[in-house]
């Protein structure tokens, strides 16, 4: 009979108990629904009464012990499942109750036990999170150690979310070193095979849960394992994303870190009974050989847990087996390669990864390693305690009927969107000190309307910009019409100017009636004009006008506002005069931006934009 495979947990247990030469080691793990500790896995290292083998094969003591543990387990299961099935199910080499020593019986009985936290030795160790050592267990009150049959010394060490129990039929005094040694064994195993950390995938399947807690590598392939892999791989086949990723890989041997990428995914699959029976067979055939090998390699590298396998194998349909088996042989050879590959420590990355994935896997593996260290240090709770005085209430699905409270016309995620989407404009707007105050109101409106979509927002930005530009242009024109304007007081000055113009119109009309005698219109105009300008000067103090009055009725007014200069020329009309004026200005190095000629008033106004600062440095 071939030695059945063991999980790494069992291997660890085996290693621990053999290294300390004790009788048995068990692992209790918490079962989430009931909140109690139940049997996880165990290793029996004690004396064996009879050894039943089909062939007279010499097996080593180690293998025998391993076998024994399995056999004890099977015996337990068969016993617990009832006698009716007893003869039919069990192979001939299985144990029957009379074959066991007392110690073995004790081990068997342990499987059936469960401990709520705080009760019993394992429960106490779990609750206190500190090791508990009990010598002379067989003499102790049954309250403390309810299983006091044989074991004389029992030590319970809380580890990795569960409790490791070691038992010995000899009396051994408490020894902290031994406890440390046992702990170290577990930790070493962890470091060698870094693992995806836990997250509960199946609350109903406690075996799977056990394995999720200790997902360590498994080396030897078995039939059932391959079936599991088929399922796992088929699961993956169904997922288009994964397939693409796998194809990208093209790697022979997977680094352990990559397997972590898949680990939890597969652990999900593991706990799932194969509802994929139909797709499994079909998909299995469609896998092209090369890719299949890669895929399967990926899965081979997964942790397959014995417990879950046996569980799922129970669920397998009969027809699954043949289809699965045909592919199994194909994979056997690959598995060996993979098994060898896995001996490599994490650091060696000699595989031909695609570089991005290699980097990512390293990143993920470092995160996971780190995660694990933190967990070993301080075990996090896996539940949130709702205090009695909680502000929260229990969810009930009836709530769906209740209407949503909305804020009327506001768009969804208004504030959040303002934060992330509109901050640019907000900052631009606010930091732009010279922006006219009129646009602030606009911006405010825009916020309140709520720019829902980003495209609309972009449009708003552009629209706003265009608007601003248009406004600026018009301000310039207005300024050219109305003398002595700067941006801030432009409206006020325009009002004043319009008033003055109206007044002037009235005056002129009045004078027109007397115009027959007024041939010196220009002279009158001049002072009027000058008067007007002086009025403007009083109104606004910011400019420094230069009023030059020529003798022949030419008036020149220049005002400088920031970078722009407004030059007003008043003279009699002459053809080509404007051209000369512009040429003269050009020679001076002044760039003319707009010219407005008003014939009626015989006023030439040129708006000049200075480009050379030195000319105006006197001002």
């Amino acid at each position: 009979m071939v030695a059945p495979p063991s999980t790494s947990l069992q291997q660890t247990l085996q290693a621990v108990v053999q290294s300390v030469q004790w009788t048995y080691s068990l692992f209790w793990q918490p079962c989430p629904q009931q909140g109690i500790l139940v049997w996880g896995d165990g290793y029996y290292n004690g004396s064996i009464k009879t050894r039943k083998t089909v062939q007279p094969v010499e097996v080593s003591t180690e293998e025998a012990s391993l076998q024994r543990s399995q056999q004890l387990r099977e015996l337990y299961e068969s016993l617990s499942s009832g006698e009716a099935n007893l003869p039919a199910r069990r192979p001939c080499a299985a144990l029957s109750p009379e074959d066991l020593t007392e110690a073995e019986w004790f081990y068997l009985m342990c499987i059936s036990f469960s401990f709520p936290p705080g009760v019993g030795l394992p429960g106490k160790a779990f609750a206190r999170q500190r090791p508990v050592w009990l010598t002379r267990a067989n003499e102790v009150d049954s309250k403390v150690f309810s299983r006091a049959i044989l074991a004389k010394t029992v030590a319970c060490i809380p580890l990795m979310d569960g409790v490791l129990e070691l038992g010995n039929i000899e009396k051994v005094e408490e020894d902290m070193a031994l406890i440390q040694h046992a702990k170290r064994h577990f930790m070493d195993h962890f470091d060698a095979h870094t693992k995806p950390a836990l997250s509960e995938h199946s609350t109903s399947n406690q075996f799977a849960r056990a394995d999720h807690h200790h997902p360590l590598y498994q080396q030897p392939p078995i039939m059932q394992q391959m079936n599991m892999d088929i399922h796992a791989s088929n699961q993956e086949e169904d997922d288009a994303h994964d397939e693409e990723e796998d194809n990208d890989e093209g790697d022979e041997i997977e680094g352990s870190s990559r397997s972590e990428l898949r680990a939890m995914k597969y652990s999900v699959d593991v706990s799932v009974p194969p509802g994929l029976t139909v797709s499994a067979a079909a998909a299995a055939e469609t896998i092209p050989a090369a890719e299949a090998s890669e895929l399967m390699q990926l899965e081979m590298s997964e942790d397959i847990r014995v417990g879950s396998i046996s569980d799922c194998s129970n669920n397998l349909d009969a027809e699954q087996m043949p289809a699965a088996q045909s592919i199994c042989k194909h994979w056997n050879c690959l598995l060996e390669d993979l098994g060898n590959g896995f001996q490599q420590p994490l650091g060696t990355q000699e595989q031909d990864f695609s570089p991005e994935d290699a980097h990512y896997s390293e990143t993920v593996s470092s995160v996971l390693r780190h995660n694990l260290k933190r967990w070993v240090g301080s075990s996090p709770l896996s539940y949130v305690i709702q205090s009695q005085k909680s502000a929260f209430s229990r969810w009930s699905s009836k709530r769906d009927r209740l209407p949503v409270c909305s804020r009327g016309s506001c768009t969804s995620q208004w504030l959040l969107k303002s934060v992330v989407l509109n901050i640019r404009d907000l900052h631009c707007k606010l930091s732009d000190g010279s922006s006219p105050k009129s646009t602030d109101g606009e911006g405010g409106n825009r916020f309140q309307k709520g720019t829902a979509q980003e495209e609309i927002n972009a449009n708003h930005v552009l629209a706003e910009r265009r608007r601003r530009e248009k406004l600026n242009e018009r301000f310039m024109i207005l300024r050219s019409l109305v003398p002595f304007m700067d941006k801030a007081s432009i409206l006020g000055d325009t009002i004043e100017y319009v008033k003055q113009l109206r007044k002037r119109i009235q005056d002129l009309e009045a004078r027109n009636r007397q115009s027959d005698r007024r041939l010196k219109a220009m002279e009158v105009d001049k002072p009027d004009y000058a008067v007007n300008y002086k009025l403007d000067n009083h109104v606004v103090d910011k400019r420094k006008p230069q009023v030059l009055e020529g003798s022949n009725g030419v008036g020149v007014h220049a005002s400088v506002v920031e970078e722009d200069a407004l030059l007003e020329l008043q003279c009699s009309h002459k053809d080509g005069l404007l051209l000369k004026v512009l040429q003269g200005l050009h020679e001076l190095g002044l760039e003319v931006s707009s010219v407005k000629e008003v014939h009626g008033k015989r006023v030439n106004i040129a708006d000049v934009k200075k480009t050379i600062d030195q000319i105006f440095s006197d001002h």
Partner: protein
Amino acid sequence: MPMISSNPPSGGNKAQQQQQQEEMESSTQESPLNPNAFTFDLPHPVYAMAFSPSPFAVASSCSAVAAASPRLALGSFVEEYGNRVDVVAFDEDALAFRPDPALSFDHPYPPTKLMFHPSPLPPLLASASDSLRLWHLGPETAELRSVLDNSKSSGYCAPLTSFDWNDEEPRRIGTSSIDTTCTIWDVERCAIETQLIAHDKEVYDIAWGQAGVFASVSADGSVRIFDLRDKEHSTIVYESPRPDTPLLRLAWNKVDRCYMATTMMDSNRVVVLDIRSPAAPVAELQRHRASVNAIAWAPQASRHICSAGDDGQALIWELAAAAAAGGSSEAAITAALEGIDPILVYTAGAEINQLQWSAAHHDWVGIAFSNKVQLLRV
């Protein structure tokens, strides 16, 4: 002056509370009598919120406050230059807020995020708006310690959408900006450690997973993980199903670093991702009836997450069953089709804009809506 209103817990027995809670379940409006929600009113809307880290003594005028009380920094959201950050302590014994006006300060532009230094000493608060600023919350007053400004010219500096303080390497702060870059700062030298062009479009949120690993979400709809040891490469862990749907918020589970969650624009879904299986989300939580605004992982439990949205609800979800939904068992299929239900729910009276779960005090969750901040006991 901000007003303080607190609801003292009812002295009733558990049955009474249960009944009250059941009544509250059936009402859409926030029941003002919820005895375990404590409200703080402010004169302006609040967006940025931060809980102080592990308890530390408050040696200020409010020394009456117990040393272990949670302390909140609240940033206003006013669309103007002048904004304010208020520091408020919550007395767990008296169940009342105690604002600390001496420590409140003016802030230029609304802060998009506030965060305390991961360790209580020095009491530093970081804020992000147009640039990253560090404030020292001294015993008497708050003062600006440094401005981490990225602009090379004196002109425009791209505003920051978010940042995250690395709790394992507290010298590092990563910021995300609308100029598509993420900048990693060394706050002790006040200098840039590195700057990466993270995405094709604006980066909206950033979260550290480890000392040298962070993830960011962007308007291009992708979640990317970056490793500072290898800045050339980044990995897309998830992309929004409809292309170019911006992902707005990101949260990395600090307890179980395999998981992170993200939210999309105008979507009521919270997408939970496993970094070990990129592209396929572990779960999509779809019980909100309007868009989700904020998410926060539980600081002490490995698989609980809280989310809040425009429907005025704060939901706490447990992801145990979620992970198993990848399989095809009947229960899992149902879960996949109908989605996972949250375990706890709280209804506020208005859209909840911000949610923070206190890392130091695991049973307090802070939410911000309209002009109020509420502390909810979990």
